[in-house]
C-alpha cells in the first residue's frame, strides 16, 4: 500500500509542471502549464516597489504578468484570492551548503611531535596541495534534500547558492531553487561562483599550518595559474590550475570568520585584481572603516552569540569584556554595515536553528537596520552579486516564479509565511493560517433535544474558549482544514493540576476535568469552509450529532507593521580600538610634550644628562637642553625621573595570528606582516614595560622560516598601522634542535634530521635562488616563486636574516653558507653559544641578540652562560637582549640590568642592548634607539634607574603619542570593572527573563611562541603549539 502511494506521489511530481523532455513517461502524458493568478494582493516587487490590490500571473514556472489594472486573467488560470496577503520575492541565500554532503573533517595540522604528510593524498592529475581543489564542482555533487529545502522554504528562501565548504580553494558553487522536482530542473546556474577560504579543511597535508601559510598558498596559486595559461610543458596537465583559471570569470566568494581575515582576504584580492564577495564573521562593526575600505560586498549571518550563564562570578571572570561586548553588539552589525554604505546580503547558513532567523533579523532591525535594506539583502543584492537578477530577486515578468505569500509585512512579528512558491510550484508553509480563523463563531449543535448554541471565541489554531454563560474547558485543533473540538457543556469542578494530568486522560475526555466527573461530552469533527465550519460528532452517550459554526465577527486584524522598538536609546557597549577591555574609545592624539628636569639616557656620546628638558613635537624629538619652553606644549615634570629611548624587542611573537608555518623546511614565502593581530592585549602590556617597537618573528619550526615584521606598539591602530614604515625587510632563519624536529618523539620524516642536513637546506635554498634569479633574467616567463623571491632579495642585500641559533658548529656553518653566496647573517638570535664564536661573527659582520640568563632547558643550551652578552660585547659585537616571551618583554630593562650583574657591562652600554643596539641590528637607528633631535619621539619616562627592578614606566610614548600612562591605566581598570559589571548583570537578567543561556565559556587567550621552550601559561591561556599538536 505504502509503496504504491509513494509511487503515485512521485508520478504526480514529475508530471505536473516542468517535465523533462528526455525522460520517458510511464503511463499517460499529463502536461500542465501551471497557470495561476494571484489577485487582490499586496505585491512587494522589490524592496523599493510595492503595489497594492495587484494581480500576479504565473505560467510554466515563470511570472508572466504583474500589475494592478487592466489585467486579463487567462481562462485557464487557477485564481487564488490573496486579499490581505502580501507577496514577496522569495529569499536568496548565497552561502549555503544545501544538498551537498559536506566532507567530514579530519583534523589535521602540523604536529611538533609526529611525522608530517608532506605531499597531497589526492589521486589524479591535480595540483600539489590537497587544500587547493578548484576542480570541485558543487553541481556534480548536488542532490535535492527535501528536509533541508523545507526548512529553508519555511523561512522564506526560494533559491540558494550551494557549494562544498571545504578547503582553501573550494571549487565552484551551483545556484539552485528549493524546488523538489528533479536536480536537472532546480539548477538555475550550474557553475555560479568560485569559493575560497583560509581554512584548509579536511586536507591532511601538512602545508599550510598557519594563517599566513594559507595566504601565501593563495598568492602562489594565483601566480602559478597565470603561468599555467601558457601550458608549460614541464608542468604537464594540472587540472587544479586549469580549473582555477576557468573559475576566474565567476563571482569569487571568500569565507572568513573574523574582521581581520576579511581585510586580509581583500588584500589578496587587491594584489591579483580580484574583488571578492566576502562571507564575514559578524564582527565587522568592530572595524567598520577598514571593512568599508575593502569595497567588497559582504555575506553576513545572523548567528549572534548566545548569552552565557554568568551567575557564578568565578565563571564570569574567565569571560573577557571583549566577548561580553560582542554578545551585546553583534545584533548592531547589520545596521553598522548599512550605515557605512557597505553592500551586503544575509545568509541563514550559520544558524543552528532556522527558527531564530526572524527573531534575529528583527533584532537587527530593532538596532537600526532598515527593513528596505533587510529585504534587499535577502533578494536583490545576492541575485545581482551572483549575476542572476534576470532570474530571481524580484517579482517581474519573465523571472522565475519564486515568491512567498505572507499574512502581513514580512518582518513584522505576527506575520507568518503561508505559502512559498518555487518555480511556480506551491509549497505550503502555514496554510492553516491562510484564513485567519481568529474571531467569534456561533456553534449550533443539532442534538436530539434540538439545536443548542454556543459561542466559540477562537484565539488561534489550537485555542478556543467555548462559552455558554461560563467558559467551558475544551480541546481544539485546526490544521488549515480540519477542525476538532472536544468539550463538555456542563461545568464541572476542576482538579488542581490540570496540566500534568491532562496527558493521562483517555481520549475524548475533556481536559481539565476529573476522570470521574459525570458529564456530557461532545466530540466534534468537521471541516472549515471558510467562514463557516460544518461537521459531525458524538456525545458521551453515543448519540450522533451534526453541527455548524459560523463566523460572527473577525478580530480586528489591523496589520502590525514591524514594530519600531527603538533600541537606540538603550545603553550599549562602546566599540573601542582595539576591541579589548583596554582599548581606546578615542585613539590618543599626537601631542607636543615638554619633559622637564629629567635624567636623560641619550645613548649618544653625551651619555646620561641630568636635569635636562626634552621637547617632543610632531612625533619627533624636537629639542633637548636646559630650560626649554614651548607654548602650547603639555609639560611633564620629570624631576627625579629617568628618560630613555623606547625599548626595542628584537625577538617577539606577539600581535600575530600565527607564528609558525612549520610544514616545510623552507617557507620564505610566508609573511608575518600578512597576519598581524592588533588586538593582542600584550601590545598594551608591553607598552607598560617601556617597549615601543617589536620585531615579530616567524617561529623556529623550520630552517628558513617566514618574513618578519617590525612594528611599533601603536595600541589601537589597525594591522597596517602597526607596521614600522620604511624599515628594511627581514626574514627568520633557524638552526638546530627545533628545525631537525628533536621533539618529534613520534618520528621525524621531514628533512633535515641533523645539523648536517640543516646546513644543506641552506646551501640548497640559495643555490636554487641563484639559479632562479638567473633563469628569470633570461626568460621573463619563468614561473615566479614567492619562496625564492625572498631568497633572491637576501642575495641582493634587500632582505636581511635574523637567525635562531645556539651552538657554535651550526653558527659557523651558517656563516660559511652566507660567505659562499655572498650574504651576511645580519643577526644571530638566541645565540647562547655566541660567546664561543664571537670573533668569527665579528668578522662575518653579524649582530647578536640573546637572552640574559636562560640556560639548560634543552641540550643545545647546556653550554649557555649568563656572561654571553658581556663577552660578545667585549669582543665588539653589537649585542641586543631580546624577550621571545610575552611576559618577559615587559621587563626587558631588567634583563639589560642582568648584563651589568653578569660580566660587569656598564649601565649605559647595558641599556643600549635593549634600545639602540636592536635599532642598529634592525637598520632603524636613524629613526629610533636613542634620544637625539630628529629621531622619532619614542620615549619612556621611568620612575627609577631604568636598569633597576624598582623602575616602572610611567609613560610610554610612541611617535609623540602617549600610549601608556600609568595613571590613566588605573582609570581604565575601573572602567573595565564597571562595564563588566553592567554586562554581567545584563546577562543574568537575560537568564532570569527566561532566555536560554549557555555555560560560561572562558575567553581563551592564545599565546604564540617560537615553539622553542617551555611556556607556563596562565589558567585561561592556550599554547597554540599545543593546540596544533592536538589537531593532528
Amino acid at each position: 500500500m505504502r509503496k504504491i502511494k509513494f509511487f503515485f506521489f512521485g508520478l504526480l511530481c514529475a508530471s505536473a509542471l516542468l517535465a523533462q523532455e528526455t525522460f520517458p513517461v510511464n503511463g499517460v502524458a499529463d502536461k500542465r502549464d501551471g497557470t495561476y493568478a494571484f489577485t487582490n494582493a499586496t505585491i512587494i516587487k522589490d524592496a523599493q516597489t510595492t503595489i497594492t490590490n495587484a494581480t500576479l500571473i504565473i505560467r510554466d514556472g515563470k511570472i508572466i504578468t504583474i500589475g494592478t489594472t487592466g489585467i486579463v486573467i487567462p481562462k485557464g488560470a487557477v485564481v487564488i484570492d490573496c486579499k490581505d496577503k502580501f507577496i514577496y520575492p522569495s529569499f536568496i541565500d548565497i552561502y549555503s551548503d544545501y544538498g551537498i554532503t559536506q566532507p567530514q573533517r579530519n583534523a589535521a595540522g602540523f604536529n611538533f611531535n609526529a611525522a608530517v604528510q608532506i605531499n597531497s593524498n589526492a589521486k589524479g592529475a591535480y595540483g600539489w596541495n590537497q587544500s587547493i581543489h578548484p576542480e570541485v564542482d558543487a553541481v556534480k555533487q548536488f542532490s535535492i534534500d527535501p528536509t533541508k529545502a523545507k526548512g529553508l522554504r519555511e523561512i522564506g528562501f526560494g533559491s540558494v547558492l550551494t557549494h562544498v565548504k571545504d578547503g582553501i580553494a573550494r571549487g565552484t558553487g551551483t545556484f539552485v531553487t528549493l524546488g523538489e522536482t528533479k536536480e536537472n530542473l532546480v539548477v538555475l546556474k550550474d557553475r555560479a561562483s568560485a569559493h575560497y577560504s583560509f581554512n584548509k579543511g579536511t586536507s591532511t597535508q601538512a602545508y599550510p599550518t598557519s594563517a599566513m601559510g594559507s595566504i601565501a598558498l593563495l598568492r602562489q596559486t594565483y601566480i602559478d595559474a597565470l603561468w599555467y595559461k601558457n601550458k608549460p610543458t614541464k608542468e604537464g596537465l594540472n587540472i587544479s590550475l586549469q580549473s582555477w583559471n576557468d573559475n576566474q570569470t565567476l563571482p569569487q566568494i571568500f569565507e572568513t570568520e573574523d574582521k581581520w581575515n576579511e581585510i586580509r582576504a581583500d588584500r589578496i584580492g587587491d594584489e591579483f585584481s580580484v574583488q571578492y564577495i566576502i562571507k564575514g564573521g559578524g564582527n565587522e562593526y568592530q572595524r567598520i572603516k577598514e571593512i568599508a575600505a575593502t569595497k567588497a560586498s559582504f555575506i553576513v549571518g545572523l548567528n549572534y552569540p548566545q548569552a552565557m550563564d554568568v551567575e557564578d562570578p568565578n565563571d564570569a571572570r574567565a569571560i573577557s569584556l571583549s566577548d561580553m561586548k560582542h554578545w551585546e553588539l553583534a545584533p548592531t552589525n547589520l545596521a553598522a554595515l548599512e550605515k557605512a554604505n557597505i553592500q551586503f546580503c544575509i545568509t541563514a547558513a550559520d544558524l543552528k536553528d532556522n527558527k531564530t532567523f526572524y527573531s534575529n533579523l528583527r533584532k537587527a532591525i530593532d538596532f537600526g537596520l532598515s527593513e528596505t535594506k533587510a529585504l534587499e539583502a535577502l533578494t536583490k543584492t545576492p541575485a545581482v552579486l551572483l549575476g542572476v537578477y534576470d532570474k530571481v530577486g524580484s517579482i517581474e515578468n519573465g523571472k522565475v516564479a519564486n515568491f512567498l505569500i505572507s499574512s502581513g509585512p514580512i518582518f513584522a512579528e505576527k506575520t507568518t509565511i503561508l505559502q512559498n512558491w518555487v518555480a511556480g510550484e506551491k509549497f505550503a508553509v502555514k496554510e492553516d493560517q491562510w484564513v485567519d480563523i481568529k474571531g467569534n463563531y456561533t456553534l449550533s449543535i443539532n442534538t436530539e433535544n434540538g439545536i443548542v448554541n454556543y459561542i466559540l471565541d477562537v484565539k488561534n489554531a489550537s485555542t478556543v474558549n467555548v462559552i455558554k454563560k461560563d467558559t467551558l474547558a475544551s480541546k481544539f485543533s485546526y490544521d488549515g482544514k480540519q477542525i476538532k473540538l472536544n468539550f463538555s457543556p456542563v461545568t464541572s469542578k476542576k482538579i488542581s493540576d490540570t496540566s500534568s494530568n491532562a496527558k493521562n486522560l483517555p481520549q475524548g475526555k475533556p481536559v481539565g476535568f476529573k476522570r470521574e466527573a459525570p458529564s456530557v461530552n461532545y466530540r466534534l469533527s468537521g471541516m472549515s469552509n471558510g467562514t463557516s465550519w460544518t461537521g459531525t460528532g458524538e456525545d458521551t452517550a453515543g448519540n450522533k450529532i451534526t453541527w455548524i459554526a459560523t463566523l460572527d465577527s473577525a478580530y480586528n486584524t489591523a496589520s502590525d507593521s514591524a514594530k519600531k522598538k527603538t533600541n537606540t536609546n538603550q545603553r550599549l557597549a562602546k566599540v573601542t580600538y582595539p576591541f579589548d577591555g583596554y582599548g581606546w574609545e578615542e585613539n590618543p592624539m599626537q601631542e607636543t610634550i615638554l619633559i622637564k628636569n629629567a635624567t636623560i639616557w641619550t645613548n649618544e656620546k653625551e651619555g646620561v644628562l641630568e636635569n635636562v628638558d626634552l621637547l617632543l613635537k610632531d612625533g619627533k624629538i624636537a629639542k633637548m637642553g636646559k630650560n626649554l619652553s614651548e607654548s602650547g606644549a603639555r609639560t611633564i615634570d620629570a624631576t627625579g625621573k629617568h628618560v630613555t629611548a623606547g625599548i626595542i624587542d628584537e625577538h617577539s611573537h606577539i600581535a600575530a595570528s600565527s607564528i609558525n608555518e612549520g610544514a616545510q623546511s623552507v617557507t620564505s614565502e610566508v609573511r608575518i606582516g600578512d597576519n598581524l593581530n592588533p588586538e593582542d592585549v600584550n601590545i598594551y602590556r608591553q607598552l607598560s614595560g617601556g617597549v615601543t617597537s617589536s620585531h615579530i618573528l616567524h617561529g623556529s619550526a623550520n630552517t628558513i622560516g617566514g618574513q618578519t615584521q617590525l612594528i611599533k606598539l601603536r595600541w589601537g591602530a589597525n594591522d597596517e598601522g602597526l607596521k614600522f614604515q620604511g624599515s628594511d625587510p627581514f626574514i627568520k632563519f633557524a638552526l638546530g634542535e627545533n628545525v631537525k624536529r628533536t621533539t618529534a618523539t613520534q618520528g621525524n620524516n621531514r628533512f633535515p634530521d641533523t645539523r648536517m642536513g640543516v646546513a644543506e637546506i641552506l646551501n640548497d635554498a640559495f643555490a636554487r635562488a641563484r639559479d632562479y634569479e638567473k633563469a628569470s633574467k633570461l626568460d621573463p616567463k619563468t614561473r615566479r616563486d614567492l619562496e625564492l623571491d625572498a631568497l633572491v632579495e637576501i642575495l641582493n642585500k634587500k632582505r636581511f636574516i635574523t637567525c635562531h641559533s645556539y651552538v657554535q658548529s651550526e653558527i659557523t656553518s651558517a656563516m660559511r653558507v652566507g660567505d659562499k653566496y655572498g650574504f651576511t647573517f645580519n643577526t644571530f638570535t638566541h645565540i647562547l653559544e655566541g660567546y664561543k664564536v664571537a670573533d668569527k661573527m665579528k668578522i662575518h659582520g653579524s649582530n647578536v641578540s640573546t637572552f640574559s640568563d636562560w640556560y639548560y632547558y634543552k641540550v643545545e643550551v647546556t653550554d649557555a652562560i649568563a656572561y654571553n652578552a658581556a663577552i660578545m660585547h667585549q669582543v665588539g659585537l653589537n649585542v641586543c637582549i631580546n624577550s621571545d616571551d610575552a611576559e618577559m618583554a615587559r621587563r626587558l630593562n631588567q634583563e639589560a640590568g642582568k648584563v651589568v650583574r653578569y660580566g660587569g657591562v656598564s649601565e649605559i652600554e647595558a641599556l643600549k642592548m635593549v634600545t639602540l643596539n636592536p635599532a642598529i641590528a634592525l637598520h632603524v637607528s636613524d629613526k629610533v634607539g636613542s634620544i637625539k633631535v630628529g629621531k622619532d619621539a619614542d620615549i619612556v619616562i621611568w620612575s627609577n634607574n631604568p636598569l633597576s627592578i624598582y623602575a616602572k614606566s610611567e609613560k610610554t610614548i610612541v611617535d609623540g603619542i602617549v600610549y601608556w600612562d600609568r595613571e590613566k591605566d588605573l582609570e581604565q581598570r575601573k572602567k573595565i570593572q564597571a562595564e563588566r559589571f553592567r554586562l554581567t548583570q545584563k546577562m543574568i537578567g537575560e537568564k532570569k527573563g527566561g532566555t536560554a543561556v549557555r555555560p560560561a565559556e572562558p575567553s581563551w587567550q592564545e599565546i604564540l611562541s617560537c615553539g622553542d621552550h617551555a611556556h607556563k601559561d596562565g589558567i585561561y591561556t592556550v599554547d597554540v603549539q599545543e593546540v596544533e599538536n592536538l589537531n593532528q
Partner: protein
Amino acid sequence: MIKIIYTLTALFAIISFTKAQESVYPTQESKGLLFITNGTVHVGNGTVIENATIKIIDGKIVEVGTNISIPTNDVQVFNAKGKQVYPGLILSSSDVGLKEISNGVRASNDYQEIGEYNSDVRSITAYNSDSRVINVLRSNGILLASVNPEGGIITGSSSVVQFDAWNWEDAVYKMDAGIHLNMPTFVVRFGRRGGFGAAVTTTTDPTKIALDKVEEIKKFFREAKAYNQENSHTNTNLKLEATKGLFEKKQKLYIHADQVKQMLVAIDFVKEFNFNVVIVGGSESFQIADILKSANIAVILSEEHALPATEDDDIDQPYKTPAVLQKAGVLFALNDNSDNTRYRNVSYNAGTAATYGLTKEEALSAITLNAAKILGVDDKTGSIEVGKDANIIISAGDILDMKSSSVEQAFIQGRKIRLENKQTQLYERYKYKYGIK
C-alpha cells in the same frame, strides 16, 4: 674587592681555576668559630642590622649583633663591610635534581611517575645532588630547595635539600616533608580549535567533573585515615601508609592549585582531615586572601613573573598579588618555576613584589623565612638568628635588584661553599680565549 680575613685551612686551599663542575667539591663540615663582620645583616624576619657581626660555632649561628668581640686566634673572619648579608635563599617548590634537561632528553628526567595516587613515591630517592643546575643556583644565592615529584593526582612526597652535598642522603635537610596533590581543574577547554575556526564546546559541566574527582581524592584519604588507625594489616598498602605523617601533622599537604574553586575546595582538606595545607601556585589567590588567612592556609606563589590570567585583569596583577596576601596576613612564599632560567631568579621575583607593594624586607622574607616556615624548616634556617644553621649569603648589593645582586660568598651550615659553576668556568675559558681582563 671584598676584604676577606681567614685562616687558610686545607679546606680553602682547594680553590683553584679548574674547568669542570666535577672539580667544585662539596665542602667539609664546618668546625670551630666563624665570623661574618661589618655587614648589613638582613635577618629575614623584617629586621635589618647595620654594621653587624654574625658569630658561628660549628656551623650554627650563636650570636648576631653589633658588639661582638672577635678572638684573635684560630678563627675565620669574613669582612662584609659594605656588603649585604642575607639568609640563604630557598626554592619552596622545585624539581631540582629530578629534571635535568626536560626537553628532548627523556632519560634525564625523573620527576613524573606513572599513576594517579603515588603518595608512596619519594622524590628524595631520585635526587641528583650533582645536577648541573645546583651550582648555578648557589651562585644566585639559593642554598636550599624543596624537591617534589609531579604527575598524577597525588604525586608523592617532597624533601627539603641543601645544595652542598655528595649524595642525596647527605643533601637531605628535611626528609619527606610533605605530600603533593594536584587539585583537579575546574576550568576545562573542551574541543579544539581546528585550523583557524572556533572552539567546539560540550555541555559537560567541568565543575561536576572536578568535584567528582575531589570526592575520589577524599575517599582515598578517608581510607588512609582508617588504615593508619590500625597497626597490623593483612594486606600492606604502601600508598595509604605513606600518608600517615599528614594525619600526625608531621607532614604538610601541598595542594597545587591556581583557580579560586580549586583553592576553596582545598579548604576541605583542612576541615575534614585537619591537614596542614599549603597552596602551591596560587595565581588567583589574590581574590580569596582573607579566606585563605582564616583557614590558616599558606601559599607558595609559583611564578611572580607571569602574565595576568585574564585579558581584563590588571596588567600588573601577578606582580602585586604578594602585596595582597601580605596585607591579609597570609603566610606566603615566592618561588621561581621558570624552566627557561631554571629557577635562578627567585630573588628578582621578590624584587618585583617589592616594586609592587611589599617592603624589601617583606619580599626577602618571602624567599627566606616564610619559605622555611612553610616547609617546616624554620627551626633550622630561613633567617639569621641564634640557634639556626649558618645558611648565609653575602651580596655586593641589594639581592632583589639584578644589577646589584652579585653573590660573593655563601655558607651552608657554616661551610663556605664555592660559587663557581659551569657558567663561570666557561666565562673564564672564553675570557682567556679573547684576552678579556
